[in-house]
């Protein structure tokens, strides 16, 4: 638990994101935001894309942000971060900053502001090499506007623009692999993480991202109880189910080197995860049986491809998590199957809904 105490100490009664906002009861986003920001040792400046996080935390004249925070529009969080980072570098060079502190610039955007409308600005900022951390809180649809399909919406999910009906089984296209797209920019650090029980993995990745000498991208699965259709109190287990079923593998691409950071101990059938959320309920109609198979097939295929990128064989354990210096060596020797003790503890408390 020492890592959690560290986060609490950094929080020091002044959480970067405080209460008083109007995000939904049980929203998965604040945990991602606070865990990421508390994992960064330097002061932070936050940029938000338009989205749930932005509208719900800054209703004028109030604010839920204890840290400097900027929002310009929906599609340009990465461009705005580029501007802040350039200003920071220019002012630092000529001694024009109000204070000497080293800063970390962190941008938050939902999957719409990352995968879709924000992709061009993000790609440009990654290519230009600005030193900033871009965090996508990926809840797999446009939740702010009422659960519309996005490029991150998984195959088979019902949204308000891909509703399931007598003639439809929800979204019938695969989601984009945004993490791979970011990695294809050959930036120093890219990682896929999740809210919930794997918070320690997320925290470690956020700390690494902040230390990267260049752009870093974190794609963090954050559930939306309303959009996914489950009780808020089940969030930890449902996000965990995405990880355990291999729908959302946890890995990092550190200086181009892929590394699995968590490996499920047992393979959980994807259907068991889909069953926990209303957005997939139509997939359990008899006529959708083939779709379920197809989804499982895709998950298996993607998992195998990811293992290949990580140069691992099925059955290998992931290398141990290095909490300190960035690792450059090839695979560390296999250790226990569950690398993150705290996450095991948390997982045990959050059993999967039937």
């Amino acid at each position, binding site marked *: 638990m020492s890592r959690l*105490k560290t986060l609490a100490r950094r929080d020091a009664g002044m959480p970067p994101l405080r209460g008083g906002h109007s995000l939904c009861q049980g929203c998965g986003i604040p*945990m991602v935001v606070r865990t990421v920001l508390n994992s960064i040792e330097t002061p932070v400046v936050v940029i938000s894309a338009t989205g749930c996080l932005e509208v719900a935390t800054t209703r004028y004249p109030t604010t839920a942000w204890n840290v400097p925070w900027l929002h310009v529009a929906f599609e340009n969080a990465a461009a705005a971060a580029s501007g802040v980072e350039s200003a920071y570098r220019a002012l630092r060079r000529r001694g024009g900053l109000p204070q000497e502190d080293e800063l970390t610039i962190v941008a938050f955007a939902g999957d719409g502001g990352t995968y879709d409308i924000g992709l061009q600005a993000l790609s440009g900022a990654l290519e230009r090499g600005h030193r900033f951390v871009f965090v996508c809180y990926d809840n797999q649809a446009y939740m702010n506007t009422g659960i519309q399909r996005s490029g991150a919406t998984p195959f088979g999910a019902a949204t308000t623009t891909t509703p399931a009906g007598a003639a439809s089984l929800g979204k019938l296209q695969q989601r984009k692999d945004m993490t791979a797209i970011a990695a294809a920019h050959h930036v120093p650090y890219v990682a896929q993480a999740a809210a919930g029980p794997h918070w320690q993995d997320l925290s470690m990745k956020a700390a690494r991202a902040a230390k990267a000498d260049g752009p870093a991208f974190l794609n963090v699965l954050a559930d939306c109880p309303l959009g996914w259709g489950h009780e808020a109190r089940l969030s930890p287990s449902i996000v965990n189910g995405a990880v355990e079923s291999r729908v959302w593998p946890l890995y990092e691409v550190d200086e181009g080197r892929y590394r699995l950071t968590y490996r499920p101990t047992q393979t959980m059938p994807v259907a068991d995860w889909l069953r926990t959320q209303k957005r997939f309920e139509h997939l359990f109609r008899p006529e959708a049986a083939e779709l379920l198979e197809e989804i499982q097939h895709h998950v298996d295929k993607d998992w195998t491809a990811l293992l290949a990128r990580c140069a691992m064989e099925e059955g290998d354990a992931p290398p141990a998590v290095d909490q300190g210096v960035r690792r450059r060596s090839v695979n560390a020797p296999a250790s226990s199957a569950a690398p993150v003790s705290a996450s095991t503890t948390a997982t045990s408390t959050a059993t999967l809904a039937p």
Partner: protein
Amino acid sequence: MGSLTGWRGLAPGGVVVRDEAEQPHTGGWRTGLRPAVDLELCVDCLLCWLYCPDSAVRLDGTAFAGFDLDYCKGCELCAAVCPTSAIEMVPDGD
């Protein structure tokens, strides 16, 4: 709208200065249940603090120090993640 500020009194560009901004209470969102803790069972694991979407778990250093009911929306996540079942939801007002 008498208590609202007129346009001449606003900072340029709608800048909100943290130290001058009010922090609206969201405790009113609760619909009958609030979290209660049995401190005998609490092991200060801080998971409730970690998960709380409303930063409504108070800490004393790194020890659990209670719930801030001005902000708690009653989502029950804290009770769900508590590894020792020290937190349970009880009727509000009790």
